[in-house]
């Protein structure tokens, strides 16, 4: 923790006004959830019917929206707040080792344009091989830009990831991106609140990814429609920040645009010393503000659920929605056994080619992708590397590790993790969104099965007629070794040939 710095009179005045702001908006009101507190403090104008005009504290913009700057210029409009904007090249860039902007034609066009425009407009940015480059939802937390209580938007649905630090963050469409660039505000209807309480302790080799996949399987891919989710409970408090980020990442796969974890000591420790954490002179006031953010003890949520994580086993998806998920030990469901979902399940099985009622374990696979904003942090790579250490990728399997950022890549190399992977037969690649959605052309070929640590297994997501099995980093690593979907716990116990 930083020490209280020398306080000048102007800062005393600022602290006093902050304190009164905090007390007037926090203590004097009836109990509020974290969502309500952050929402209320960002209202620029009330538009009626539960809809407000909100101030955007931080707008991340990535390369697929590079054209927005050109459009603004064409229309004679300015970016209102360059100092509240941050540009990142991630979706279209190649992840080939040693890549440059030239490695992907789309990347060259889009990423190049994004960074050139940002620089011309005095917007902070990270270009393709800058030391700080990576997937946008990695960069926010890594740089300390993502902070409790900030309202953050980005033209990417996995912006919910950043809620792990207690920010209120969500994905927006292109028109909204444009409007934020012009006005630094956004019109939004206040969501309902859903709190999911996680109790119990995680079993070995079960990760936050398994927890969120299990949650989506249990509650449904549309459970969160109209809700902002708060993840709470002892199991969440025990999770390190990286695991919280992985958890929040899949909020949108449950239908919730916003997924949040209340800030606590883990959060504050995480933020200490980051590049863009609050400066020395602001730190104490920021801390006081952050500490006021968690939901009041008697706050009411529109809906609450409780999940015991000690029941959760490694998860794998078998179909074309994140809700098509089972324990790795289970059988693929029989469509007839689920009348409400029968047609959807049958259609999913028709696409993936799996057999209803058969075990998910044993499904042969051809590709493994360890990467994406869901699971490409150093903790993910460390855990996966423990699975592959001393083992070999199975014949016929192409296995990639795509670190989520240059920072993670460097750290992995410093720890020798890259060599553990390459010795086993993995490719260790450059940071980018890569095979999660193949916007850069890095496709999974038709008919091939890919075990992926990403967040979507939609039809054709990783390439036309490709089949995606979502899983955690250790489960993906185990699949690479076995050449088929396996229970990582059995592999580590020496029970898998």
């Amino acid at each position, binding site marked *: 923790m930083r020490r209280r710095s020398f306080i000048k009179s102007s800062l005393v005045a600022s602290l006093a006004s*902050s304190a009164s702001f905090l007390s007037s908006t926090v203590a004097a009101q009836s109990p509020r959830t974290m969502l309500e507190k952050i929402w209320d403090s960002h209202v620029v104008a009330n538009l009626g019917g539960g809809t407000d005009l909100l*101030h955007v504290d931080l707008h991340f913009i990535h390369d697929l929206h590079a054209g927005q700057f050109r459009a603004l210029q064409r229309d004679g409009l300015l970016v209102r707040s360059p100092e509240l904007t941050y540009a990142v090249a991630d979706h279209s860039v190649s992840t080939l080792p040693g890549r440059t902007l030239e490695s992907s034609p789309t990347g060259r066009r889009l990423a190049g344009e994004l960074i050139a425009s940002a620089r011309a407009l005095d917007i902070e940015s990270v270009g393709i091989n800058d030391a700080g480059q990576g997937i946008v939802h990695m960069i926010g937390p890594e740089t300390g830009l993502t902070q409790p209580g900030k309202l953050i938007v980005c033209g990417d*649905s996995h912006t919910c990831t950043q809620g792990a630090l207690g920010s209120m963050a969500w994905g927006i469409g292109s028109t909204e991106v444009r409007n934020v660039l012009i006005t*630094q505000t956004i019109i939004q209807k206040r969501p309902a609140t859903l709190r999911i309480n996680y109790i119990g302790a995680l079993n070995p080799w079960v990760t936050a990814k398994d927890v969120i996949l299990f949650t989506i399987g249990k509650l449904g891919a*549309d459970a969160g*429609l109209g809700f902002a989710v708060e993840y709470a409970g002892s199991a969440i408090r025990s999770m390190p920040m990286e695991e919280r980020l992985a958890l929040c990442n899949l909020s949108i796969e449950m239908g919730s645009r916003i997924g949040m974890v209340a800030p606590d000591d883990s959060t504050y420790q995480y933020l200490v010393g980051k590049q863009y954490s*609050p400066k020395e002179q602001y730190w104490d006031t920021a801390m006081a503000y952050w500490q006021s953010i968690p939901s009041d003890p008697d706050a009411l949520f529109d809906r609450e659920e409780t999940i015991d994580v000690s029941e959760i086993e490694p998860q794998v998806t078998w179909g074309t929605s994140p809700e098509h998920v089972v324990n790795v030990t289970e059988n693929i469901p029989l469509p007839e056994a689920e009348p409400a979902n029968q047609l959807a399940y049958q259609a999913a099985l028709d696409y993936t080619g799996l057999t209803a009622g058969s075990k998910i374990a044993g499904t042969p696979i051809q590709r493994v992708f360890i990467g994406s904003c869901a699971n490409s942090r150093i903790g993910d790579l460390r855990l996966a590397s423990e699975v592959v250490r001393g083992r070999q990728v199975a014949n016929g399997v192409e296995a990639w590790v795509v670190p989520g950022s240059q920072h993670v890549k460097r750290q992995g190399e410093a720890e020798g993790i890259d060599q553990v992977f390459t010795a086993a037969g993995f490719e260790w690649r450059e940071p980018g969104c890569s095979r999660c959605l193949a916007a850069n052309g890095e496709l999974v070929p038709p008919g091939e099965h890919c075990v992926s640590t990403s967040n*979507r297994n939609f039809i054709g997501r990783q390439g036309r007629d490709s089949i995606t099995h979502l899983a955690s980093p250790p489960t993906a690593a185990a699949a690479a070794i076995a050449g088929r979907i396996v229970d990582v716990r059995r592999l580590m116990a020496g029970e898998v040939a």
Partner: protein
Amino acid sequence: MRAFTTHTGLAAPLLRPNIDTDLIIPLNRGSRGVELSEGQMVFESIRYLPDGSENPEFILNQLPYRRASILLAGENFGTGSSRESAVTGLMNFGFSAIIAPSFGQIFYNNCFGNGLMPVVLAPEQITQLTEQVAFNPLVAITVDLEEMEVRHPELRPFPFTVEVRLRNKMLAGLDDIDEILKHTEDTELFESSDLERRPWIYDWR
């Protein structure tokens, strides 16, 4: 933005749940070697065979459904990615309205930014409409935002609800920006007091 007041047209059913925006439109429009229009790329992965010809099994390739301008859909339509091309692609194909029990939220918002009318009806009502369409697909359905109802000659009208603000926006063909720009002073007031309360938001570079 194109206004939406009332529309009458043929309907086509595509009822599977959780139709995601990746299915609605792929990111890469040049994947077939030649850049196709957004309308041509809608439902690409299930609309075309590997050789590029139309998949005769796909309903929107069949007459009269290929002339449909109203889509009857399943729950959570438009889930997934925030890509706004899912909306513009559907409009480019020829759709003016989508009727579903629920929508992905980002997609729903994006609809109101472009003039594609998303209508929420109960599953049983959509089933009734689908049955009528199966019986006679040449009978047109009306989506009326002014009266806030969906009408079919053989059925009682189905009322639907839309937020007042969104309805007004659609009827007038307004963009959000028109409304936001009325609050420029409010934004300036907010920022000047916020700058004192939370200076670290603004001073970080």
